[in-house]
C-alpha cells in the first residue's frame, strides 16, 4: 500500500495532474448543476479530450467530474425542486421546502458539507476495504438483486409523506411504467408504441418532467407572489458549525452509501433513499421529514456522495462497471491500454492510488467552490418566479435532449410534466414513482432470471442468506410504519371520542 501511495503521489507532482483535478472539479460542478446532464453523460462528453492525455491525468480529471457532479446535483434540487442528478431527487424532498422557508443558504451549506464528509470518509473506507469488498459485490446474484429491489420498494411506507395510500398509488403507477420496454428475458418489445420506448421509459425525461416541469407549471399559478425573503448565511466557520448536530447522521449515511455503492447495479439513488428512510426512522422528529427537515438533506447528500467511492471498489478490483459513470471510467482507461480488474494493482498501481489521492485532495477545493458558490446561488431565489420558470424550463429541456439527442425524449418529459402537475393536484408526490422507475426493472428482470436459474423453484429467494435477510428486513420495514399509522389513528380517534371539545 505504501509503495502504491508513493507511486500515486509521484504522479501528483506533475502540474498536468493537478490542473486536470481542478478542471475536473469545475466541470463536474457545472455538469451536476445542469438537470438532465448526468455524471455519466458529462464524463463521456469529456472522453474525446482525454485521448491525448496521460492515463493518470485523464482518470484524475474524470474522477473529479464524477465527485463534483454528485455534489452539485443538490443545487437545483434545493433551489427549484429540479434534481441535477437523479439521486438529488431525495435531496429535493426536504431541501426545496427549506428554500421556500427562506433557508436556501442553510440547505446548500448542509448539502456541500455533507457531501464532502461522505466523500472523504467513504474514500478512506475504500482504501482499506477494496480487496474484501469485492467478495461482497460478487455475492449478489439474481435472487439477491431481487430481494434488494424489494427492500428498496418496501421503503415506500416510510417514504410517502402523509398518506400511505397515495404513496402506493404513485409506486404502482411507476411499476406499471417499468413494464414498458424490451422484455428482459425474451428480448421482445412490450407495450412499445414508439421505438423511443424500446429501452423503457427514458428515466431522465421522467425525472425532469415529474420534478422540474411540473414545478414550472405550479410556478405559473402564482406569478405575482413576491420573492422569498433571503436570510443571511453565516461566515464560513459558522457554516461549518451548522454540521455539529448531524455527525451521527453523516457517519451512518456514509456507511450506507458506501455499502450500497459497492453493489454493482445499485446506485446513488438507492443509497439516498435508504439513508433518508433510516434517518427518518431514527429521527426524534420523523413527521417533519418531507416538509423541510435538515436531517433529510444531510442524509441524502452524504450518502449519495459516499456511494461513489463504493462504486469504485468493484470497478478497480474486478473491472465490473456497476454504473454508467464507472463504465465511462473503464472506457477512458481502455483507450490507454489500462484495464481495471484483478491485475491493475500489480500492473498499474499508480491508477488506483492516484484515484484515491484525487478524491482526498480534490475535496477541499470542492468545498471552497461549494461554500462560496452558495453565496451566489442563494441570490437566484431573489429572481422573479416568471423568469426562473422560463430558465428552468429551457435548461431542463436542453438537458433532456443532451442525454438522448432525440426530440422524442423532450415530448416524454413534457408529458411527464403534465402528469406530475396533475398528480400534485391530488397530493400524489413524484418520489415514489422515481423509486419504482429505479427499482422496477431490477426487480422484474432478476426475479425472472432467478427463476430460470432454479427451474421455477420459488424457494431460491429464501434459501440464500443475503436474499432471505433482505426480504425479512423489507417485511419489517414495510409493516412497521403501517402499524404505527393505524395505532396513531386509533389513538387520535380515541382522544377525539374522550375529549370532544379538543376535536372541534
Amino acid at each position, binding site marked *: 500500500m505504501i509503495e502504491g501511495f508513493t507511486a500515486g503521489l509521484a504522479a501528483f507532482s506533475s502540474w498536468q495532474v493537478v490542473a486536470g483535478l481542478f478542471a475536473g472539479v469545475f466541470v463536474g460542478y457545472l455538469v451536476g448543476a445542469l438537470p438532465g446532464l448526468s455524471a455519466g453523460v458529462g464524463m463521456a462528453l469529456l472522453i474525446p479530450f482525454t*485521448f491525448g492525455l496521460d492515463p493518470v491525468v485523464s482518470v484524475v480529471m474524470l474522477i473529479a467530474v464524477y465527485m463534483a457532479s454528485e455534489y452539485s446535483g443538490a443545487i437545483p434540487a434545493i433551489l427549484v425542486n429540479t434534481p441535477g442528478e437523479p439521486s438529488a431527487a431525495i435531496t429535493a424532498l426536504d431541501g426545496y421546502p427549506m428554500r421556500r422557508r427562506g433557508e436556501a443558504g442553510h440547505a446548500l451549506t448542509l448539502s456541500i458539507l455533507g457531501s464532502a464528509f461522505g466523500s472523504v470518509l467513504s474514500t478512506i473506507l475504500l482504501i482499506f476495504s477494496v480487496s474484501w469488498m469485492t467478495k461482497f459485490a460478487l455475492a449478489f446474484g439474481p435472487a439477491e438483486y431481487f430481494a434488494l429491489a424489494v427492500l428498496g420498494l418496501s421503503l415506500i411506507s416510510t417514504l410517502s409523506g402523509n398518506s400511505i395510500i397515495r404513496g402506493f398509488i404513485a409506486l404502482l403507477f411507476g411499476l406499471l411504467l417499468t413494464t414498458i420496454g424490451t422484455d428482459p428475458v425474451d428480448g421482445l418489445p412490450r407495450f412499445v408504441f414508439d421505438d423511443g420506448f424500446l429501452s423503457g421509459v427514458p428515466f431522465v425525461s421522467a425525472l425532469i418532467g415529474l420534478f422540474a416541469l411540473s414545478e414550472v407549471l405550479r410556478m405559473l399559478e402564482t406569478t405575482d407572489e413576491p420573492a422569498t425573503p433571503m436570510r443571511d448565511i453565516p461566515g464560513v466557520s459558522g457554516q461549518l458549525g451548522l454540521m455539529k448536530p448531524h455527525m451521527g447522521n453523516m457517519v451512518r449515511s456514509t456507511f450506507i452509501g458506501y455499502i450500497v455503492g459497492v453493489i454493482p447495479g445499485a446506485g446513488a439513488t438507492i443509497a439516498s433513499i435508504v439513508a433518508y428512510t433510516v434517518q427518518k426512522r431514527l429521527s426524534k422528529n420523523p413527521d417533519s421529514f418531507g416538509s423541510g427537515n435538515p436531517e433529510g438533506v444531510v442524509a441524502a447528500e452524504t450518502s449519495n456522495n459516499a456511494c461513489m467511492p463504493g462504486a469504485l471498489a468493484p470497478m478497480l478490483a474486478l473491472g465490473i462497471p456497476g454504473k454508467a459513470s464507472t463504465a465511462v471510467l473503464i472506457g477512458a482507461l481502455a483507450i490507454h491500454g489500462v484495464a481495471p480488474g484483478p491485475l491493475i494493482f500489480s500492473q498499474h498501481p499508480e491508477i488506483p492510488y492516484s484515484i484515491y489521492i484525487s478524491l482526498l485532495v480534490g475535496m477541499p477545493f470542492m468545498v471552497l467552490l461549494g461554500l462560496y458558490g452558495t453565496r451566489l446561488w442563494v441570490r437566484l431565489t431573489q429572481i422573479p418566479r416568471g423568469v426562473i420558470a422560463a430558465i428552468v424550463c429551457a435548461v431542463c429541456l436542453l438537458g433532456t435532449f443532451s442525454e438522448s439527442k432525440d426530440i422524442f425524449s423532450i415530448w416524454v418529459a413534457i408529458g411527464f410534466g403534465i402528469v406530475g402537475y396533475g398528480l400534485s393536484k391530488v397530493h400524489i408526490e413524484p418520489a415514489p414513482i422515481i423509486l419504482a422507475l429505479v427499482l422496477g426493472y431490477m426487480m422484474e428482470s432478476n426475479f425472472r*432470471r432467478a427463476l430460470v436459474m432454479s427451474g421455477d423453484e420459488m424457494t431460491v429467494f429464501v434459501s440464500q442468506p443475503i436474499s432471505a435477510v433482505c426480504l425479512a428486513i423489507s417485511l419489517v420495514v414495510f409493516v412497521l410504519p403501517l402499524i404505527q399509522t393505524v395505532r396513531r389513528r386509533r389513538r387520535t380517534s380515541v382522544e377525539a371520542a374522550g375529549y370532544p371539545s379538543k376535536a372541534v
Partner: protein
Amino acid sequence: MLLRFISAASLAVAVIANSAAARAEYPERPISYILHVSPGGATDIMARKLATLLEKSLGVPLPVENKAGGRGAAQLADLKKAKPDGYTIASVTSTHIGAFNQTLKQYNVDSFDWIARLVNEPYLVVVRNDSKLKTMKDLVDTANAKPGSVVMAGFVRGSGGHFAWEIMAKAANLDSGKVRWVPFDSVGDAVTSVLGGHSEVAIAYVDLVKNHVTAGNMRVIGVMADERVPQLPDAPTLAEQGYKADTSWQQMRGVIGPKGMPDEIKEKLANAIKQALEAPDMKTYINESSLVPAFLGPKEFTEYAKQQDALTKQWMQILSLER
C-alpha cells in the same frame, strides 16, 4: 436553388464522365458518423479512433454522434432519413442483424448499404477456476447426465451469444434445452455472475475475461474460432476438442450507410477504412482489445451480412419452434 441544381447537375455529369474526378471531389464537407452506443464503451472508443484516422486521410472532419437507445432504433431512424451521398455513415454490429429479426422488423439487411467490416470477436465458453467442468466434453456430459444442472449465463435470448451456444450445442449433438440459458442485461453481467458463482458457465468475449484468466479466477474451456486466441494461448478451440461448430459466427463491428450510395463513394470510404485499420495506433488498440482484424469491402460485407441474416432467421425459427 438554381445554383444548387447546377452544382448537383455538374456533379452528376462529373460522376458519369469521370469517376476519378468525382472521387477526387468527395468528400468536400464533414461526414457524420452515427453510433448506436453511448459514449465510453468499447464500440464507441474504437469508432472514435477510426474517425480520427479517417479525418486525416479524407481531409474532412468526422463528427461522431451517439444515438443510443432501443438496440439501434434511434440510430437507424436517423440513418434512414439521411441522403445516400456519403456524408452520413453509421456503426453496425451483429446485434443489429439480430434486431432486424426481432425488435426492429421495419428494417432488414437490404435497408442499408454495407460499406466495410472492421473486426471480429470470437465467442468463448468460460467457467470459474474452481468449476468441475474442464473441457467442452465435461460440459456436454454433465448436461446429458443431469439435464438442467448446468446454468449458462449470457445476453438476451436471440442475441449473437445465444445463437453461438445453440450452434455449439448442435455441433456437440446436445439438446440445448438441457442447459439453462439465463439472459443478463449485458455479456459483462453474465461474466460477473460466473465470477460470483451464481452461474456455472458464460458465453463471453476475450476482452471481458482475459485479465480474470491471467489472474487465475477464470478458465476458458472452448474458443469458437479456427485458431487459438493470441491473448489466451492455453485456451483450446472447439475444433481441437472435436466439435465442428460454424466459426464464421462471431461478433462483428462494421460501417454502414443509407441505401443507394454511389459505388465510388463506398469504395473510397472502404479504402480509407482499410488504411485506418493498418495504422500503428489502431493496430495496437485492436490487439490490446483482443479483437481480430477482419476487413471486408462493400461487396463482400454485403454478402457476409446476408449470410449472417439467413443464419439468424434459421435459428429464430428453430428456437421459436422449440418454445
